[in-house]
């Protein structure tokens, strides 16, 4: 029973957090940072052109 109460409390907090994040437009921020960091891997790749 107590666990169910905790589960419902977690769901409520999760929903509030989700709604607040959406209201702040953080889903757009995720897109922004994803695009910004898409090149973050690039320096660690081997050179594209073979070393001739």
């Amino acid at each position, binding site marked *: 029973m107590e666990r*169910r109460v905790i589960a419902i409390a977690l769901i409520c907090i999760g929903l*509030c957090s989700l709604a607040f994040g959406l209201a*702040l437009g953080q889903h757009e921020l995720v897109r922004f940072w994803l695009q910004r960091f898409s090149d973050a891997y690039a320096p660690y790749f081997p050179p594209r052109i073979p070393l001739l």
Partner: protein
Amino acid sequence: MKRDLLDWSRPHKTLHFVIKKAFDELLAIRIIRFFVQMIAFVLLSFAAITFVLGYNPLLASPLAGVGWLIPIFGYIPLPFDMPHGYPAGTGTGFLDAIMLIGQAGMFPYIAVGVALLVPALVGRSFCGWICPFGFVQDVLALTPIRKRWPSAKTNQTLSPIKFAVLGITLLFVFWLGLSTFLGIQQDLARTLGPFATAFWSVLSPSGTFFVIIPYLVITNNISPFIANWAHMLTWQPLIWIRLVFLGIILALALFIRRPYCRWICPEGALMSIFSRFSLLGVSRRPTECPGGMCESQRCEKECPMGIRFMQAPWGRLYSGDCILCGDCVAKCPEHAVKVVFP
């Protein structure tokens, strides 16, 4: 009983038995789960299909795949391990979102909301049924190699690794976020090097599998090196570390079911904190389970996460490690294990 039903002098009963058995086999949870995982894998890698059809996601946009299949939800992070930067991917995992938003000096409300809401509602079922890297490990487990079952002590010893990975990752997020807030992020980025973007993304074997290797293939970086292997020595050490780490995980997955999920996955670690309160779960009923002295102990032997179900109290299993794969439900000969909600 079984012999009676297979008595061909009574064809209608035999036929009924054969059809019932075929349905039981067809609807075995493991088979359904495998199909769900396969469909999820295809949907999550949807851009890969368009790439095969002649569309290069790298030419159109750095992350053309992201969000393709979830226009309704936009960029809401997914509740499993899905590395950002996956060129064929249609989404990103919530830990990656926490890292990306957190290092920008903001509190990741949406990602934290997902990390609380999903495990409290359906536990870690996304790990068992949807996670693409979990699916890769499940496919490797199908190889006809004799499986090893790590002891409870081994599981207990290695399980804290995932919490350590999670702790270090969150520490880096806080550190980077604070530096952004104080306006010294550029200096810190120089100090931390590759770890200045997102700590776990730089090492994650899932990231290596879904980001590094596809990029190497898509950009044709790998073919000249295969033609002349000596050039592979010019690769950055970090690439080699990542490839070796991934190789170890995949090799382990041939012998042990879901080694990454059991011991290393930080997403799983974060979800396991809340999934022990999950409304959806499995329960072992004392009336069907013969005094807990079942000889087969299939519920424990079939568990990919190595949960000691027989040692747990009767009734609902409250374990953060349970990925709700349903193998214990399907394999219990006494049908003592059931899915329960709430």
